[in-house]
């Protein structure tokens, strides 16, 4: 059947199909391309019909896989043709042949714009489709407002509007900075009332992109989404044409639930109830049916519902329903469902605490690791990796090792990386860890990255008990006939350092060790030879009493390589040769490698780096970031340039290598801030994170320096009691005993936690304290996660809460010992009795080895946690505002020294403090009005109203009025807001000196000296009432 209607095109296609072989086809294509090229050259004789035909042929040739490097111009020029048939070809072929980066596309912008704003609906559609599929930045700049207009136009048919919605989506995704979506929350809310499901489906995709970027702005869409879901999944109220195998548009259901996952929670109880009712219906009502399409569609909805339930942290019962469903799915035969069961179980691990239930399915999951389908094996591997902990690490890692030998190449690298990480994270004992890594290298040496063997060396170096064992194991592997080069490297290194610990065992004399290693030398590459040379030097040093013959042999080798073409090898050979002549001095220089500082595993870093590329940020990731406290090892926040962040804790180290004015300024800055700081002019204690540098650098040059810089940190003395004045500027007090440096800036972490509910409160090389909090009215439930980052236990753990008078706090029992690499959770119940800005402090103590670490940490149970944003209408606001007529219920203050910020930023700050900015209440655009509800036992729920009048001429001052029904609350809230406005958080990287901090600049303007009367806050206030 040839519907094409273009004879020439059909004939050409038939010709191609009749070609006997690839060569004939190429000839035919070349002939046609030549023909088209000539015809395009003298364009004059070309009718629009012919032009259209040739452009189609070009697209066909392009589709066959041939390069078409001309004719783009012709395709683009057809876009401006006056008639539909040519225009249509121009649009379609252009959007197939070109992409957003082609210059030719610029030529079309004007025509496209005219088509979009013109009256011809068909042309509008063509133009919107082109822009939606390949529109780039310039299109966004010139067309976004027009497209936005079409989307909300009441005179356009749904046909145009659904295209406009998706066109806008593309422009927004590509250039969020160009497309102005301010005020679009109202429009989106209206769009969600749309009855046409095509427009609604498209708009929902747009909404997903918008909320993923900024959910705060789109709260008003949340109830609408729930309504839509009810309409589809519960009431089944859709036109017949939008049901798919009896299911009301599964795609719209899925999209709607996706949008809902970007809202952190559903607060309104009615909406929440409706939503859970629908979700419950989906969870319970989805049965397996015979029809594949129906089954897939209903399960598409079901899996999205599962994701949403997990996200909402539903009640226990519903969560266990989810786990039960997933448990069922991972055991079914149907491959797609099993795959999705595994995938979603992995996701579930990221958001909730279901490890124990999932562990019950371990055997089932391991079966899937051996499935013939690689897609399923991959998901099983991910899940096993995710569910692994101290209790099952041995089983899982051994399973992975066993599977490694038979795994296909595509998976081996990932498999070995994951096995290595698990072995490291959850090793019940270190000798097991060494076994695992050596087995990995033995079984899949080609797939074991350098990081893996560097890491095992690091562990062995740092754990004396482990050294003889590791040396013995390394020696055993050398007996194997053909070993991987990586095994040669790691065993040579370990034996060089520790083979003397084996000296009395058979086959382990220096000479025997040397011979068995030297046997491998002819088989290894140039990168391994330097390691072997270092090993020889060390063996030589350890051979006591000196073995003259061995010495002769080794020196001969050094001699031989002194003229090696490889500079690294040559240098080592020369140096070792010269050193060997020095006798006793050799002992010092070739002494055992010092311990490595504890640091984040580069393996874990590597695993974390493999970022996915998705159109919208993954909802689950966003959430997982908030719940990062489950992860024991978080990224070390040391800036790349080597300057440790300025810590308010008091131990600031400034590297002395950059002894410029800049660094002096940095040293002084903390003093300006009012925090006490001891500047230690030593080089930073953390050496370069480049492990490679550590291990492969010439061993001879490394002196035992690793521990030195830590020795005199005790100078933090004068700090005691030196608490700075402002309540929010209190720095935790360090005890003299502390010789452990925190990682990251404690004050910064605290301030971050004031704004969000989970994250890391404190971290040092041994422990990480994470926090996760839930606040409801005047109650709070805070969970402290104490994670031991080491392979040795932490002892004498003590946590004491010093609550201020207004908070009632109950901390559950904290165990005295935290086992290696384990995490304990300590729930803390908080009740807010009355309004106050005072802070609770956690006094935390533990012992590690000889170190006693004691830190006092402020807990983020701050005033704003007991606030709940509330929107008030003008009808509610003004009577309230008037009734709270003056002090002490309504307080006003002119605040100076305000951190200058644009009004929008201030509004964001307020919103993040749970002070809901109510736009439109104050007619003056320079003012902000906000409302919130404060909860405490004494005040119960109490409405608070805030008004900020800013002076556009001087952003450093403003007038603030706070009103509530309780005098203490009014005062405390006013002071609290003031602190937020004048407070300057330490800049995250602390590399650049911050502008002048909190203290009021002496030359601050007197309140009445504003240049114009209009900006006088007093006059403005009068205008409001």
């Amino acid at each position, binding site marked *: 059947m040839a519907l094409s209607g273009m004879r020439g095109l059909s004939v050409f296609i038939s010709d191609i199909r009749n070609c006997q072989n690839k060569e004939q086809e190429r000839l035919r294509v070349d002939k046609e391309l030549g023909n088209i090229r000539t015809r395009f050259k003298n364009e004059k004789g070309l009718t629009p019909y012919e032009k259209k035909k040739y452009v189609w042929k070009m697209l066909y040739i392009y589709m066959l896989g041939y390069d078409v490097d001309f004719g783009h111009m012709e395709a683009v020029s057809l876009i401006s043709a006056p008639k539909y048939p040519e225009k249509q070809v121009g649009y379609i072929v252009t959007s197939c042949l070109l992409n957003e980066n082609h210059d030719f596309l610029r030529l079309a912008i004007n025509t496209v714009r005219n088509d979009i704003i013109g009256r011809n609906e068909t042309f509008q559609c063509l133009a919107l489709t082109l822009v939606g*599929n390949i529109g780039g930045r310039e299109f966004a700049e010139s067309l976004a407002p027009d497209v936005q207009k079409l989307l909300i136009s009441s005179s356009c048919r749904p046909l145009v509007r659904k*295209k406009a919605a998706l066109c806008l989506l593309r422009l927004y995704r590509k250039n969020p900075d160009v497309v102005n979506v301010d005020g679009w929350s109202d429009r989106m809310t209206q769009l969600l009332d749309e009855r046409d499901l095509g427009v609604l489906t498209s708009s929902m995709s747009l909404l997903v992109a918008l909320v993923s970027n900024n959910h705060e702005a789109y709260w008003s869409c949340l109830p609408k989404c729930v309504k839509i879901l009810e309409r589809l999944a519960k009431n089944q109220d859709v036109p017949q044409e939008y049901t798919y195998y009896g299911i009301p548009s599964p795609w719209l259901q899925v999209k709607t639930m996706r949008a809902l996952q970007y809202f952190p929670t559903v607060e309104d109880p009615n909406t929440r109830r409706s939503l859970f009712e629908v979700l419950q219906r989906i969870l319970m009502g989805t049965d397996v049916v015979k029809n594949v399409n129906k089954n897939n569609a209903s399960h598409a909805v079901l899996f999205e519902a599962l994701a949403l339930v997990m996200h909402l942290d539903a009640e226990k019962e519903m969560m266990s329903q989810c786990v039960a469903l997933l448990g069922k799915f991972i055991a079914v035969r149907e491959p797609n469902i099993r795959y999705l069961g595994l995938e979603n179980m992995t996701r579930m691990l990221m958001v909730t605490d279901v490890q124990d239930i999932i562990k019950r399915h371990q055997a089932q999951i391991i079966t899937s690791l051996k499935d013939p389908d690689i897609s399923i094996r991959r998901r099983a591997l991910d899940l096993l990796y995710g569910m692994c902990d101290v209790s099952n690490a041995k089983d899982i890692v051994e399973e992975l090792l066993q599977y490694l030998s038979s795994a296909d190449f595509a998976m081996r690298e990932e498999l070995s990386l994951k096995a290595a990480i698990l072995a490291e994270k959850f090793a019940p004992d270190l000798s097991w860890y060494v076994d695992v890594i050596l087995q990995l290298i033995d079984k899949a040496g080609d797939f074991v990255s350098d990081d893996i063997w560097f890491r095992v060396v690091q562990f062995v170096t740092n754990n004396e008990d482990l050294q003889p064992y590791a040396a013995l194991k390394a020696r055993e592997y050398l007996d194997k006939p053909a070993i991987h080069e990586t095994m040669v490297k790691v065993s040579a290194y370990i034996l060089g350092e520790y083979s003397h610990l084996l000296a009395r065992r058979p086959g382990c004399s220096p000479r025997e060790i040397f011979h068995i290693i030297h046997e491998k030398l002819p088989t290894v590459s140039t990168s391994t030879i330097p390691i072997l040379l270092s090993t020889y030097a060390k063996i030589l040093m350890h051979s006591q009493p000196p073995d003259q013959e061995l010495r002769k042999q080794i020196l001969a080798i050094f001699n031989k390589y002194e003229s090696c073409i490889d500079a690294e090898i040559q240098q080592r050979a020369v140096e070792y040769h010269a050193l060997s002549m020095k006798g006793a001095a050799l002992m010092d220089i070739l002494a055992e490698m010092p311990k490595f500082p504890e640091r984040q595993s580069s393996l874990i870093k590597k695993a974390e780096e493999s970022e996915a590329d998705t159109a919208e940020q993954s909802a689950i990731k966003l959430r997982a970031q908030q719940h990062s406290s489950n992860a024991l090892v978080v990224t070390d926040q040391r800036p790349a340039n080597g300057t440790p962040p300025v810590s308010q804790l008091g131990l600031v180290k400034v590297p002395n290598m950059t002894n410029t004015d800049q660094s002096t300024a940095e040293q002084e800055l903390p003093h300006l801030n009012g925090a006490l700081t001891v500047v230690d002019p030593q080089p930073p204690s953390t050496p370069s994170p480049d492990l490679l540098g550590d291990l492969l650098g010439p061993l001879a040059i490394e002196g035992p320096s690793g521990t030195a810089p830590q020795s005199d940190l005790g100078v933090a003395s004068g700090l005691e009691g030196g608490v700075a004045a402002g309540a929010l500027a209190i720095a935790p007090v360090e005890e003299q005993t502390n010789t452990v440096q925190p990682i990251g800036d404690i004050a910064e972490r605290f301030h971050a936690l004031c704004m969000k509910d989970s994250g890391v409160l404190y971290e040092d090389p041994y422990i990480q304290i994470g926090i996760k909090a839930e606040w409801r009215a005047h109650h709070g439930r805070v969970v402290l996660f104490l994670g031991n980052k080491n392979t040795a236990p932490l002892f004498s753990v003590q946590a004491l809460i010093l609550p201020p008078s207004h908070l009632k706090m109950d901390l559950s029992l904290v165990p005295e010992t935290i086992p290696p690499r384990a995490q304990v959770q300590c729930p803390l119940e908080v009740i807010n009795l009355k309004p106050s800005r005072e802070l609770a402090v956690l006094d935390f103590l533990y012992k590690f080895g000889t170190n006693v670490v004691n830190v006092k940490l402020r807990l983020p149970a701050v005033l704003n946690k007991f606030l709940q944003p509330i929107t008030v209408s003008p009808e509610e606001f003004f009577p309230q505002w008037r009734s709270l007529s003056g002090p002490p219920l309504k307080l006003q203050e002119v605040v100076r020294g305000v951190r200058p910020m644009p009004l929008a930023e201030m509004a964001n700050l307020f919103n993040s403090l749970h002070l809901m900015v109510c736009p439109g209440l104050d007619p003056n655009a320079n003012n902000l009005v906000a409302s919130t509800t404060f909860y405490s036992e004494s005040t119960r729920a109490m409405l608070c109203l805030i008004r900020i009048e800013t002076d556009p001429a001087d952003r450093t001052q403003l007038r603030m009025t706070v009103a509530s029904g309780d005098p203490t609350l009014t005062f405390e809230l006013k002071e609290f807001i003031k602190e937020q406005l004048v407070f300057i958080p330490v800049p995250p990287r602390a590399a650049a000196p911050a502008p002048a901090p909190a203290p009021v600049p002496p030359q601050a303007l007197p309140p009445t000296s504003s240049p114009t009367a209009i900006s006088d806050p007093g006059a403005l206030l009068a205008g409001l009432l």
Partner: protein
Amino acid sequence: MIRFIILQNRQGKTRLAKYYIPLEESEKHKVEYEVHRLVVNRDPKFTNFVEFRNHKVIYRRYAGLFFSLCVDITDNELAYLESIHLFVEILDHFFSNVCELDLVFNFHKVYLILDEFILAGELQETSKKAIIERMGELEKQE
């Protein structure tokens, strides 16, 4: 988001390719080659999903034709799998009993239908009826 959609026969001949992300010509041909290799030998008893670079390909086979969609790893697999089927149903309806030859000789129509179905890498319309009616409207204008 759909990154691209490719229709190929068992020999790897591309019958339709539409990209919603900017790729150079050579890169497109490479992608088509790799996707074909990825799906063509998979057992029919396997999943319809397979990892592809940083994304995943959702594919389905109809007679000798493979329909492959490349989507984000966070996307809902089954929803996209069924959108392939919906697309096939639309083609089937439009060509009344579609076969590979229809798609070969009328590839330009297939692009038109696709543009009514997917835009900017997202589903635009899920009503078969609406799309078929729209195609009728457009044909009248030719």
